[in-house]
C-alpha cells in the first residue's frame, strides 16, 4: 500500500482501474502523482460521477501536463474553448468517431500522451469504450518474438483513415516509431503498433509485414488484455495513448452521445 493511498481498484491485470475520488475540488500534489502512477501502471483510469464544469475539468487536466488546443474539424473546440473539444454523435448520424481499434496520434511524429473524456450525454445503453493494455500484450509474446520486435520500427500513416474522411485534408507524412516502446514513466515496454495507423515494418514491404502485423493485431484483441467501460453521465476516463488501444462502439443509432475531451502532453516514449 502506498504512503498516502488513493482507493485504486484494478479491473484486471492487463488494463484499467477505477479510482474513487471527487475531482471537483483541489487536492494535494501526491494525489495527482498517484493518479499519474495509476495511469502508468494500468493504462487507463476511470472516475465516476464527476459533474465538473469546464473550468473544474480543465483545472484537473492541467495537473498532468500542458493541455493541447483543439484544432480538429472532426472533434471541434467546445464553445470556443482552447482546451476542451467535443466528441459528438447526433441521433441522425450513423458514423461515429473512433469506431475501430486505434491509438490516438500514432501517425504523428510526437504523439500526445494523455487523453481524457468526460461523458456529458450518453444513451441509456450502448456507446461503451473498450481499451487494450499493450504492455500486457507485449509481455505475453514469446521471448523470441519479443527479441525480434525489440529491434524493429514501424511506419504509421493516417492515409487510410483520412481517405474515409469528408474534410478533404491530405494525409500526414509517414512517421516511424519503435515497434516496442519504453514508457517514460517507469520504462516498461509496450507494443506500439495498431490496426488503424500502422502500415508496415520499417524496411519491409506492406505485403511482407501484413501477416505478422495481423497476427499481432488479432493477438492483442484477446479478451484477457482488454476492458470494457460503460459510461454514465459524469464518468471520466483518462488514458495513456502510448500503451493502450481503444475502440468506441457504434451501437446506439438514433441517440445522442456527447463527450468532452482534453488532450495533455507529457514526456515522449523512447
Amino acid at each position, binding site marked *: 500500500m502506498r504512503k498516502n493511498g488513493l482507493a485504486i481498484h484494478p479491473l484486471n491485470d492487463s488494463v484499467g482501474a477505477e479510482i474513487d475520488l471527487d475531482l471537483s475540488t483541489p487536492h494535494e500534489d501526491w494525489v495527482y502523482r498517484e493518479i499519474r502512477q495509476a495511469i502508468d501502471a494500468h493504462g487507463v483510469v476511470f472516475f465516476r460521477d464527476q459533474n465538473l464544469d469546464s473550468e473544474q475539468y480543465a483545472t484537473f487536466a492541467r495537473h498532468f501536463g500542458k493541455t493541447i488546443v483543439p484544432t480538429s474539424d472532426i472533434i471541434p473546440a467546445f464553445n470556443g474553448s482552447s482546451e476542451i473539444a467535443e466528441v459528438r454523435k447526433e441521433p441522425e448520424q450513423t458514423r461515429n468517431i473512433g469506431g475501430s481499434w486505434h491509438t490516438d496520434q500514432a501517425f504523428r511524429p510526437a504523439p500526445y500522451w494523455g487523453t481524457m473524456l468526460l461523458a456529458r450525454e450518453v444513451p441509456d445503453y450502448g456507446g461503451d469504450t473498450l481499451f487494450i493494455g499493450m504492455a500486457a500484450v507485449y509481455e505475453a509474446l*514469446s*521471448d*523470441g*518474438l519479443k527479441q*525480434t520486435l525489440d529491434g524493429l520500427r514501424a511506419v504509421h500513416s493516417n492515409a487510410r483513415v483520412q481517405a474515409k474522411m469528408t474534410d478533404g485534408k491530405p494525409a500526414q507524412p509517414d512517421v516511424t516509431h519503435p515497434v516496442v516502446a519504453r514508457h517514460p514513466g517507469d520504462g516498461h515496454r509496450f507494443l506500439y503498433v495498431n490496426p488503424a495507423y500502422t502500415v508496415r515494418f520499417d524496411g*519491409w514491404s506492406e505485403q*511482407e509485414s501484413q501477416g505478422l502485423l495481423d497476427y499481432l493485431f488479432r493477438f492483442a484483441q484477446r479478451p484477457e488484455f482488454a476492458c470494457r467501460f460503460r459510461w454514465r453521465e459524469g464518468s471520466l476516463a483518462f488514458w495513456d495513448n502510448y500503451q493502450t488501444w481503444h475502440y468506441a462502439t457504434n451501437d446506439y443509432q438514433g441517440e445522442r452521445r456527447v463527450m468532452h475531451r482534453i488532450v495533455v502532453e507529457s514526456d515522449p516514449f523512447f
Partner: protein
Amino acid sequence: MMRNQIIEEKPVAGVGAEIFGLDLREKLSEQAYLEVRQALNTYGVIFFRDQNLTPEQHLGFAERFGEINVSKFLVQVPGHPGIAEVRKEPEQTHNVGGGWHTDHSYDQAPALGSILLARQLPDRGGDTLFANMSAAFEALSDGLKRTLLGLKAVHSNAHVFGPKRPASRNNIDAQMRNTENAIQEAIHPVVILHPESGKRVLYVNQTYTVRFDGWTEQESAPLLNFLFQHAIRPEFTCRFRWREGSIAFWDNRATWHLAVNDYHGERRLMHRVTIEGVPLPAARDSFSTSAES
C-alpha cells in the same frame, strides 16, 4: 566461362539448367566432375536426359560428389541400400514429396542433394517443381532480410510422416518404412550461407519448418506462410517433365522441390541416391557489418 568446357549448360527460367555432353554411364573425368559441381552450385538443380544407368552407375556418379546417405525412411532397392525407391503404385493415392520441401531439413547436417533417376513413368503427369531459394531471399526487402538473418528455425519430421502425423496420412506406410522413428528435430539458421556457392539462401520450407526458434508456432505461422507463398512465385520456380532415363540432381540447400500427384491409377518409380551434407552456417548480415565499419 571455362575454356574448352566439356559440358553444355542450358539455363532454365526460374531455377536450374539442362546439362548436355555427358554420358553418365562412364566415369566422369576430373574436369567434367568439376564442371558439373560448378553447374550445380550455379543453378541449384541440373537436369540430364536419356541416362539409362545401372544401379551401380547411378551410385558411381553420386559417389563423386560425396558420401552416400542411406535413407532411413524410404524403401531400398533390393541389393542396393544406397538407392532409395520413390514409388507410387496404381492403387495408391498418396505420393512421396507432394508438398514443397527440402529433403532432410530435420537433420543436423541435411543432405547435400539427391540424384533422382526416372525408371517408370505415367504417360503424363508426375512432374517435379523446383524453387530457387537464393533468388527468393534476395527478392525480399532489406528490412525483412535483416530480420531473417538474425533468426533460426526449428525443423521436424514427426508431424509429417512420424508419430505425430495426422491419421489421414497413415497410408504413407505403404511407401515408407521405419516411420515410428521419424522423430528428428533440428535448428538451422533461417538464412544460410551456402557452404559451396557462398550464396545467401532462405532455408525454411513448408513441410518441415515448424516455427522460428524462440517463437510459438502461432506467432511464426503468418511470417512463415508469407515466405512460403513468396518463394513459389513463378519467377523463382521451374517445372520438370520427366522421361524415362531423365535425371534431376538438386542441391538440397539451394532449392525446394515438390512432386506433383496427378497420375492416379498409374505407376511411377524413381531411384534416388542422396549425398551427405554438412551442418549449415548462418549467412551474415552484410548490412550491419557495413554500417558498423
